């Protein structure tokens, strides 16, 4: 079975998360993705815990391994003129170049869009950056974490009596690849039809704001800023995460309609409190929400999160375990879906790789290789792809081009 992107050649200069997730989509469906890496400036994820046996090492990181299956690694020293020469050979080979450095970095290496066009006039370059390629703050440099704040998420997370909270991950790094990849695939198809390449400019900041779209309009039209409302929803009650039996175990329950309320009451055994007028309608339940939540939790505390979920679902009520990482790995449904694929990493051994959230019926994603050690494919790339002779290779090696 051949992949959709078989034969698609991607020179991947990206690092950390925002760029590599784009190339992961392509790699999983058959593209040849060659990551250009250097031990002088290793990918941030190679420098991040968890490490195998808690011993740090650029090829021992589980985070990098989780995100980077199906990719090749070419070790190049881009701070070296000969290294740049090799990089340009790679561009000449490539259909697509992906990068997510601060704007200007690629230019400094002689690998900006204008430079790339001189090598390959119809090249498609995808540039993902914190705040975009141009503008007064284009040079504002940070990891993805501060963008959580800049995009405006914290005011929507937290309890009414406490401060706003951050999203616990570099969220915009994960939001932006959805938009970037859809545009990139459209661009590749467009070039196939017209012969025209382009440089796509994605601002992770802007993609974050898109995920707050309704809140933007709410302010523009109603003057309302974000506020911390815990887990409440204007459309349902009970609506929240309820403590269950065990250590830090919770189940989310969401009741919206009258029918669901009836189902909920039945699921908890129709205790007398559920017939009180203060809970008879959504409006009343919202008015008495604190009391309601307290009563629900007095019930849920006696059951495991799994039991709460199954009882609720049997009664037609939306409910789900608040799953920890351990729960995700053990999740019977994800197992059925084959979401986590265990690949055998060279230094780490068997470790799960993150999956794709969509299954294509005719051209499924394939797990072909575990994440690479840094520079693992330098020899493969220089012989099979760049056609660099042994003599030239030795010269370049001695000149410090390769890492």
């Amino acid at each position, binding site marked *: 079975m051949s992949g959709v992107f078989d034969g698609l050649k991607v020179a991947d200069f990206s690092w950390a998360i925002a760029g590599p997730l784009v190339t992961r989509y392509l790699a999983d469906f058959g593209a040849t993705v060659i990551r250009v890496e250097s031990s002088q400036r290793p990918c941030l994820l190679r420098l991040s815990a968890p490490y195998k046996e808690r011993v740090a090492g650029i090829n021992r990181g589980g985070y990098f391994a989780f995100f980077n299956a199906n990719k090749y690694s070419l070790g190049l020293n881009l701070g070296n003129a000969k290294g740049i020469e090799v990089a340009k050979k790679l561009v000449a080979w490539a259909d697509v170049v992906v990068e997510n450095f601060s704007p200007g970095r690629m230019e400094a290496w002689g690998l900006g869009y204008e430079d790339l066009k001189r090598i390959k006039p119809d090249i498609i370059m995808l540039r993902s950056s914190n705040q975009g390629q141009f503008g007064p703050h284009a040079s504002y440099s940070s990891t993805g974490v501060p963008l959580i704040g800049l995009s405006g*998420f914290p005011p929507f997370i937290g309890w009414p009596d406490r401060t706003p909270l951050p999203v*616990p991950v570099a969220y915009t790094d994960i939001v932006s690849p959805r938009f970037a990849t859809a545009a990139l695939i*459209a661009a*590749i198809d467009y070039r196939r039809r017209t012969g*025209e390449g382009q440089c796509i400019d994605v601002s992770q900041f802007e993609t974050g704001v898109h995920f707050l779209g*309704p809140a933007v309009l709410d302010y*523009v039209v109603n003057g309302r800023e974000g506020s911390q409302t815990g*887990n409440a929803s204007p459309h349902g009650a009970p609506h929240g995460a309820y403590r269950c039996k065990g250590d830090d175990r919770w189940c989310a329950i969401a009741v919206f309609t009258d029918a669901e309320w009836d189902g909920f009451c039945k699921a908890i055994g129709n205790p007398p409190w559920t017939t009180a007028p203060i809970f008879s309608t959504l409006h009343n339940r919202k008015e008495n929400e604190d009391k309601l939540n307290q009563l629900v939790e007095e019930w849920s505390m006696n059951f495991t999160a799994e039991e709460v979920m199954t009882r609720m679902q049997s009664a037609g009520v939306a409910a789900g375990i608040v*799953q920890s990482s351990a729960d995700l790995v053990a999740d019977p449904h994800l197992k*059925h879906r084959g979401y986590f694929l265990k690949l055998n990493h060279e230094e780490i051994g068997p470790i799960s790789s993150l999956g794709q959230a969509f299954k294509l019926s005719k051209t499924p994603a394939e797990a072909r290789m575990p994440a690479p050690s840094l520079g693992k494919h330098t020899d493969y790339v220089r012989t099979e792809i760049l056609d660099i002779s042994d003599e030239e290779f030795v010269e370049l090696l001695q000149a410090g081009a390769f890492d």
Partner: protein
Amino acid sequence: MLSGLRVLDLADEKGFLCGRMLGDLGADVIKVEKPGGDPSRHIGPFYHDIPDPEKSLYWFVFNSNKRGITLNIETAGGQEIFKRLVEKADFVIESFPPGYMKKLGLDYPALSQINRKIVVTSITPFGQTGPYRDYKSSDIVSMAMGGLMYLTGEPDRAPLRINVPQSYLHAGGDAAVGSMIAYYHRQQSGEGQHVDVSMQESLIWTTASAVPFFELHGTIIKRTGALRAGHYENAMERQLWPCKDGFVIFNIVGGVFGAKINRALTEWIDSEGLADDFIKGTDWQKFDMATVTQDTIERVEKPIGRFFLNHTKAEIYEGAMGRGIGVCPVSTIEDLLQNPQLMAREFWVEVAHPELGENITYPGASAITPVAPFKIRRRAPLIGEHNQEVYGGDLGLTETELNNLKQSKVI
């Protein structure tokens, strides 16, 4: 770039973003709702808080760049019309419970008989198969089952979701990518296929390193409030800091990468007399986040915290970024609307809503694609707004036929 392609978008809130993204890329997206309007039109917030199906801001924002028709696909007449529409369509997007489209004779196998090229994208909470496939969901349940909720919140209280629903958007975003991959295959092979999207799975990427931490160390990463969990097992650094007029996001990064930044920050704090001996005496070159103690982290964070409290978001943002220190303010929506970077990039666009008598500001391009500049060509459709155009124009139905269909509640 996708102009000339047609999308039939039957999805509810679980899938709006997919059609929106394809529409933004130039496709002709037709929102197909049941007569009277889709129930998702009751999702707030609402224009001036009026809970009217033509005033849902949620509907507005994710259904712009789409036309709208009504069609009752549960009737034989409706199914016939739908099949006729599929003949000329390139994508179908739906988010009905698994099995529903099959029951109506409108699942991928049936539709591919009519149009070999059709790409059918189904978006559901847990996918088309599996033990949870028939489970009911909503945003909070998806956030819970997908793993992000467990990581979010204060340690002494319940885990939290983000109160602008995010799960639908991750699912919609992933669905757009999946649809494009299927379309790319179609361009090469001439055949479409079925794209089965699981909302639960689309959230798992947001758990970042949590699963590797569990697999390699047996460590379960938990919520830690304003601190940053899951990177070092010995200590947690602060992420969210109060300042004079709000909050900023900043976290200490160690090692060589962070040393320059931390030195610059220390100097800046010192220039205002707020650096204490401890932070001034810290050797940032040797500051290894993997081995420092929580006590050390808190001691260096103390003067930083005091410094931030002394300054506004704007002062910190400009001052920090000018010194190569990555700190960002926590933006209010007002801040976003005034943000000079967004304005310079013409991110904000005005969309006309003649029925409301005003233009509303919307977020604009999600990617700058020079060959086909982004535009919001139309606001979200009113109920049945393009029935005449699509049924009369495209399908060539006469006035009488249209009236009959309306009478029999097919459209």
